[in-house]
């Protein structure tokens, strides 16, 4: 079924905004999320299409509210749970 990522031709999005001198990553954690994904794919924990699929399975509300690398991190944690690598409790920050 059509998913929220499939936006080609859709109406209603705002004007395109360009950021001058945009850095490759806007925060250190974004670079870490990027690298983490590459490492897990290389190890065969999941493949690139499973990763894309996981992003697409986010709810439309969540997808549209999230930044680019927030989507990536959501997909990574979804897949770690689904592949049995870690439980949701283990992935959660320990409460201090």
């Amino acid at each position, binding site marked *: 079924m059509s998913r929220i990522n499939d936006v080609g031709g859709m109406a209603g999005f705002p004007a395109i905004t360009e950021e001058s001198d945009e850095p490759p990553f806007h925060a250190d954690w974004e670079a870490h999320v990027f690298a983490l994904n590459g490492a897990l794919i290389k190890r065969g924990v999941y493949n690139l299409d*499973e990763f894309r*699929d996981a992003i697409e399975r986010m709810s439309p509300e969540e997808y549209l509210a999230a930044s680019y690398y927030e989507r990536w991190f959501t997909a990574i944690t979804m897949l770690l749970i689904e592949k049995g690598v870690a439980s949701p409790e283990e992935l959660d920050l320990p409460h201090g």
Partner: protein
Amino acid sequence: MADLAPGMRVRTRTADPDGHTRLPRYARGAVGVLVEEAGVHPLADDRARGRAGTPQPVWHVRFAAADLFGSGDHTVTVELWGEYLTPIEEHA
């Protein structure tokens, strides 16, 4: 799957499957022309479901914007797996 060749007119799959696919909805059920083959790859739909998938040719398929959106004088070329495509019978 039928033999595909450049210049052939094809219709894209109309169905909207559950889960990951690489046929964008704006190009669903549309008629376009094959431009050239873009390599041979396992279907992404299969890989996204954790299956290896059988490699098959992928094509650049060109659509007239007017056929996709009802207006526009540009073209949109989409990269589509052979499995999404059915040749259109040409009648003489």
